[in-house]
């Protein structure tokens, strides 16, 4: 008993300061010995390191508890003793969490301003807590009255800043302020995000270079995770470069760090994309090289010597209104009349197709008129070989979402086709094999969005061909597929 008490006193007097200095020295040496330079290291470090995100909450809670206990201790002195214990726990928790955090950054090769701030914050926080513990006895005995409260306040401030830096690493810079009320966002420092340049439409950068970064690089180089302090999610940020300075030297691909890194042999530690991500395709590297060599412009539409096809993009169709209430009626139509009113796709908003192929021999204008109740939902109409006449345009003009209309081999002469002029989405009209005349066709030719107009085997085609034969004109082909 006496031995332990004497040891404890001795520890307080001599060993504790020595141990503390040692710990502080080790802590300060860590960032110097193990530089966070963006290189990933061992997997086990990452494995352990990822528990940092979990463990980090423990020291925060403990440190917050210390001032509460100190204040409450004014009224119940026993709580002050608890504060000492909690402070001790805080030191242990801080050191553990710092170690895990360092393993995470070092193991995964995460670097950048955010990571550096967070790391130094965590380090000084640990040291701060340790110092608090060391100077607390002198405050309690009344020898030094203000040092401990002042240091504790500093520790709390550093903790808030460090925690915010850490949160920004995982959630992104503007996570907190993203949904802040507009007036609040105007305050300096709040809602400030690095302004991202908008892409210049149809530029080579927007069409070909940015999509490469988007698909291969931004997982580690954007606001959320800025390895090497480099962001590739916007042109201006790309040109700002990273911790090694500019990564693009316009006109000089071979001097551009970005180009050097993507052309290193696969397996080289510095090769990008890093880790086990697949390397860029040869043509992508060619494009990037040519783009840098020709000035790394955000706006030029094409590059000399580069034929890059426009990337395929799904184009969303204009959507029709909700007709789910009419589904029962729709499914009855096929059963009762043989007319098919079927969905374009499983997406309701893509609309309906009216197909009369099964009843073409008898289907007429009057029957078509009955479909007016579905007018806003029908996007394609197949009336080929039916008995409809020019009167059909009166009904069809109410089909406001009509995209495609097929009137092949009907008795239509085209009289009144101009009534369709209001259908802004109509892009396809097939009048092949009808009686359409050149004069009647004129209103259809004037429709700007009607890119696909066909009148093969009609009087109109015959007239157009004859004209072309007598006086060669640009529109000599009887049909056209695009304007």
């Amino acid at each position: 008993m006496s031995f332990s008490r004497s040891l404890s006193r001795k520890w307080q007097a001599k060993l504790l300061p020595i141990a503390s200095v040692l710990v502080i020295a080790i802590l300060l040496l860590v960032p110097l010995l193990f530089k966070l330079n963006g290189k990933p290291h061992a997997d086990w470090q990452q494995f352990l390191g990822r528990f940092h995100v979990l463990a980090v909450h423990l020291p925060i809670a403990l440190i917050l508890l210390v001032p509460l206990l100190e204040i409450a201790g004014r009224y119940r002195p026993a709580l002050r003793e608890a504060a000492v214990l909690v402070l001790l726990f805080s030191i242990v928790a801080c050191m553990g969490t710092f170690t895990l955090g360092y393993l995470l950054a070092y193991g995964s090769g995460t670097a950048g301003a955010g990571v550096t701030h967070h790391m130094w914050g965590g380090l000084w926080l640990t040291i701060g807590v340790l110092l608090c513990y060391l100077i607390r006895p002198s405050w309690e005995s009344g020898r030094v009255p203000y040092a401990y409260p002042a240091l504790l306040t500093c520790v709390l401030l550093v903790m808030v800043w460090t925690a915010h830096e850490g949160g920004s690493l995982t959630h992104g810079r503007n996570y907190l302020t993203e949904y802040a009320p507009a007036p609040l966002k105007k305050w300096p420092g709040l809602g400030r995000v690095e302004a991202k340049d908008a892409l210049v439409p149809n530029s080579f950068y927007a069409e070909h270079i940015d999509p490469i970064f988007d698909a291969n690089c931004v997982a580690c180089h954007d606001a959320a995770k800025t390895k090497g302090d480099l962001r590739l999610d916007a042109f201006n940020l790309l040109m700002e470069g990273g911790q090694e300075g500019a990564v693009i030297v316009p006109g000089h691909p071979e001097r551009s760090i970005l180009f050097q890194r993507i052309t290193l042999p696969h397996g080289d530690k510095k090769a990008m994309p890093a880790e086990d991500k697949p390397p860029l395709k040869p043509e992508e590297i060619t494009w990037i090289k040519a783009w840098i060599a020709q000035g790394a412009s955000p706006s030029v539409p094409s590059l000399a010597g580069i034929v890059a096809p426009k990337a395929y993009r799904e184009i969303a169709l204009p959507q029709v209104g909700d007709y789910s209430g009419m589904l029962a009626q729709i499914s009855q139509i096929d059963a009762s009349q043989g007319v098919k009113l079927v969905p374009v796709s499983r997406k309701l908003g893509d609309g309906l197709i009216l197909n009369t192929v099964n009843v073409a021999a008898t289907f007429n204008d009057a029957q078509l008129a009955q479909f007016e109740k579905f007018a806003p939902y029908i996007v394609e109409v197949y009336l080929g070989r039916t008995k409809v006449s020019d009167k059909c345009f009166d009904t069809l003009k109410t089909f406001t979402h009509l995209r495609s209309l097929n009137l092949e081999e009907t008795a239509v002469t085209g009289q009144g086709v101009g009534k369709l002029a209001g259908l802004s989405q109509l892009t396809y009209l097939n009048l092949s094999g009808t009686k359409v005349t050149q004069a009647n066709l004129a209103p259809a030719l004037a429709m700007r969005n009607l890119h696909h107009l066909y009148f093969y085997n009609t009087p109109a085609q015959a007239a157009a061909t004859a004209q072309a034969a007598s006086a060669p004109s640009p529109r000599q082909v009887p049909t056209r597929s695009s304007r």
Partner: protein
Amino acid sequence: MKQHPLCTDPDHGPTILDLPIADGLKMEWAALQTRRHFLGKMGSVLGLAAMASLLGDKMLTGSAHAASTARIAPHPPEFAKAPNFAPKAKRAIYLFMSGGPPQLDLWDYKPNLAKLFNKDMPDSVRGTQQVTGMTAGQARFPIAPSHWAFKQYGQSGAWISDLMPYAARMVDDLAIIRSTNTDAINHEPAIMLMNTGNMNSGKPCLGSWLSYGLGSMNNNLPTFMVLLSKTNPNENNQPVSSRLWSSGFLSSEYAGVGLRSGGDPVLYLSDPKGVNRDVRRKMLDAVDEINHQTYKELGDPETNSHIAQYEMAYRMQISVPELTDMSDEPKSTWDLYGPDAKEPGTYAYNCLMARRMAERDVRFVQVYKRGWDVHANVTGTLPVLCRETDRGSYALITDLKQRGLLDDTLVVWAGEFGRTVYSQGGLTKDNYGRDHHPRCFTTWMSGGGVRRGIVFGETDDYSYNIVKDPVPVRDFNATILHCLGIDHNKLTYESQGLDQKLTGTTPAEVVTGLLAS
């Protein structure tokens, strides 16, 4: 009375057919069921047969029930047959060049080979590949440059052999794929792989998957039709048979219906003398009735397929003569397709027929042309093959285009593999042969959903290995399905414990480089 779900007696409560389980399972159950019932019901069947013979034709003609199509198994609601997403193509025409057209003499221009005539192909090009038994014994693999010159055509500047003057005119409508490749080196597995996505028979083919997935547009014609072109006895014709348009484990109503190249397009479709349409209808009604009883008793979905097929045949008695009567075609048609098209069963005739089917909204038409297996005498047979096919393919594309049908019809031209750069058998200045070559071959697509006027993929200097953008068969098929609005991963059918699909179990990708946005 509550029954166990495995109860086999349809008169006593629910059976397995009423359970909300996969059709495939029900079918397997039904297969077992039929065998058991055959023994069990033997006696009563004999009795019924005796009674039927006593009653004579009264039993058949006495039925006064109105005819209708399949009633027992409810068809899935229309949404179930809708594409996964809005399709670019509503229908497809597949021009199948059976035998393996030599890409080196048609599409894949290799100007440097001329200098290498009769030189040995470097071993590094072939690597460790095992070649066929037909050339494995050859002492050397001498390079056979193409006998024909190539020129550039169209805005796309695609190189086309002088053998195909008509193809040269339509390059700006095609997406030429030089990098198609397959896993099989012999005809049977290769042609099965192209058609069904699997080298072994028993899987449904592309057309059956489309019929199953998208359903029919025209109720009076089969959803999937097959046109066989006449063979030329001077060509090396590999057999094609109905397993290529089989529905595999899908219901047989999704199988392709072939039109014969000569005589009656569909055998026994026309009524025999003395049987008019009313008598035929009555007969069908009676058969229908019996079939429905059979279905109720045995629960075999194939019975429903039979009912549907009888009805389809009845409607085809009207629709097929109308389809095949080409007297309404204007002179411009014959000018376009050429004199061959007048003769039923030629490739050109079938191309015209395919256009007529597309007009009638037949979902999928497959035209087969055999004879491309040019192991020897390339300079003798290839010009004949090209004369037979070049104009027809061109006419089809041009005709669809001028009629506004190419916007929503996908046309595919493909064989089952390519042919080697080295000569099979003797190589002379004037002649050579080419063996099977799976590592690369040229195909093309055109129309709905496909980019026009592009050459996709690249092969090495020997047209032996692919150096850029390989398109394996599964990706090729995934892309076809995509054009028709189908996600190849979603069009599945459970059979033998696996969610089967056309593209198989190896992950397939849609080749977006071929698609028009």
